[in-house]
């Protein structure tokens, strides 16, 4: 990797390299999720300003469940799609099938079994989502 020495010295460690901080962010996010889940009980009592026959037919907790399941459905369908559609990077320039052994830059973006923020700075970190949610 190309690095500029004088910049490297300036910022060797980011806040995501501190597991305690990352863990605190996770906790905050889980708390927000829990609060949003409970807010469904508040919604039950309010009048729906935009009468929504579909929502009424589907029952309560539609949105949290739908959001969660959507992500899993999306990824579980994308994975078999990948095995079908993946080709080498130079496919359109005459290349052929994808060969995992010739993928030097392939870096695992997650590591199964790692605890949140522990040992793997930034891995599985929801920094962006938490910021979004606020």
């Amino acid at each position, binding site marked *: *990797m190309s690095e500029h020495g004088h*910049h490297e010295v300036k910022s060797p460690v980011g806040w*995501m390299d501190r597991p305690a901080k990352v863990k605190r962010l996770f906790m905050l996010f889980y708390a927000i999720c829990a609060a949003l889940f409970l807010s469904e009980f508040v919604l039950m009592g309010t009048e729906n300003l935009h009468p929504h026959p579909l929502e009424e037919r589907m029952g309560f907790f539609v949105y949290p469940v739908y959001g969660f399941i*959507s992500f899993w459905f999306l990824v579980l369908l994308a*994975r078999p799609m990948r095995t079908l559609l*993946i*080709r080498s990077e130079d*496919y359109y320039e005459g290349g052929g099938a994808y060969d995992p052994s010739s993928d030097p830059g*392939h870096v695992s973006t997650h590591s199964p079994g790692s605890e949140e923020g522990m040992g793997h700075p930034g891995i599985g970190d929801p920094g962006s989502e938490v910021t979004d949610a606020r």
Partner: protein
Amino acid sequence: MLGSAPPFVLFFLGAIVVALTKGTLRKSVLLSVPLLGLVNLFMTAGADVGAPSAIGESVTHVYLTLELLGYELQLYRADKLSLLFGYLFHIAAFLGFIYALHLGDGIPDGSVASEVGEEDVVGNNSAGIQHVSAMLYAGSALGAVFAGDFITLFVFWELLAITSAFLVWARNSDQSYATGFRYLIIHVVSGVLLLSGAMMLAHQTGSIEFGHVAGELHGDENGGLASAGLPALLLLIAFGIKAGFPLAHNWITDAYPASTPTGTVFLSAFTTKVAVYALARSFGGLDELIWIGTAMTFFPIFFAVLENDLRRVLGYSMVNQIGFMVAGIGIGSALAMNGAVAHAFADVIFKGLLFMSMGAVMTMTGRTKGTDLGGLYKTMPLTATLCIIGAAAISAFPLFSAFVTKSMIMVAAIEEHHYIVWLFMLFASAGVLEHAGIKIPFFAFFAHDSGIRTKEPPKNMLTAMSLGAVLCVLIGVFPGALYSLLPFEMDYHPYDTRHVLTQLQLLCFGALGFITLMKTGVYPDEKRAVHIDAEVLYRKIGPLVVTSMGELVGRVDNTVRTKVMDLLGSVLAGLSRIHGQVGLLARSWPSGNMVFWVSLSLAVYLLFYLFF
């Protein structure tokens, strides 16, 4: 003059001045043209301008006409619909030019892009071409939305294609040359279809007015595609190609990642939005668009999960967002139409912001792939923050722009009883959060630390991104201003407890889904690979068929030639055996030969005599 000058004129004149100037003078021209244009538009809007004739009362102003072959060309027609896009394109051009201001000043200080290997990754050597073609491109987009007839529209439609192709070529790489030509061919085809449709329509109806033609599509009442519908169908396909309809969407994912960091920002603003405008103008309420749009929201999100090049992810995201607009146009109610064009407005700004942030990363690091990036929040915290604001805006978090625009389309879908469509759109909304809301900022700025140490991009880039971010928030917090510009009357309030809470539930639990997918290792790794899409038809299979057909023809030709030559050879050999110097018929030639033929003919004569 101001107030009645067609908006494109200013930009075309500006382009000439930009081409002739350098340095500070050019920079001031780049920035003042869109601002001056905006003043011009406000003066136009000062006149009482109403909704387009499709729905509601029509107050349309035509400022400049031209006579051509007996047809009246309207070069500048303004109503609320065209003015909305007019404002939008001026804002987009202004932000884009701020973002591209540093071009020609040399490679930004602290950039590690030059170490990547590609010589001119930021397109610094093509600064002049980029500035001039971007100015012409923005002018063409304005010309198209203010065109009052199909012929004027066609001219600007083709100018859009030609001027923007230079933004792809400005990258100066082999890949961008090839991509630029593919891009140009696809858009010229779209223009040819547009002209054919317009000419047939003019032949049938005697009018070339750029107006509502959806009714023409079905010909008769029962909706069959009678021959009467052909011109409208051609127009629909022409618009559809530019809007990125399914199967015609790959020019977006092909060209946007191939252009320069600055070029892509312009590309993402104009072409597809002109197409959305054209669809809204001509095909509002066309049922087929609901399903085409829904398909567009749906399938790209799967590709976006798998794609490694983050600018191509944004390309798929573009198709997904246009899908919402197309579906809204198909639904066709006042709320849906307003939602579609309002979402186009918001999209240009937040998608521009996201492309700008990825362009900033590319300018400074030379990389845009998920496998190469990560951990940049340490050295580019401002860019990261601005990118997250764009991500929040596209994901439709409350207080951000898409929350107040996309929801209009969703509510309209429910109101018009398109429940299945609504469910698909809700799923697609979660998909937007996945690829644009989380994946883009996460893989670029967080995730694993790539070890790249760089700096924030040049100040002008940060300024453009900051202005974009401010607009994303302003539209989200004060939607009234944007709503007042929308073409149709409506009564809609985005902020109520239920809408805010349910949207937050959808998004936060989607994000929770992302965390669980990461922690269980189910989320697919980024891979250095391509995932084939419809473009495989013209980039791989088409050429393969042509080449193998050529080979087959060559082989057949070769075989036939050899066989015929062999045959000829053996005939000649046979003849020479009989007629050659020592051949049967040549040995005693001419007298012996003569005797032989005479006796043969006598024998034949004898036979005839005996039997007939």
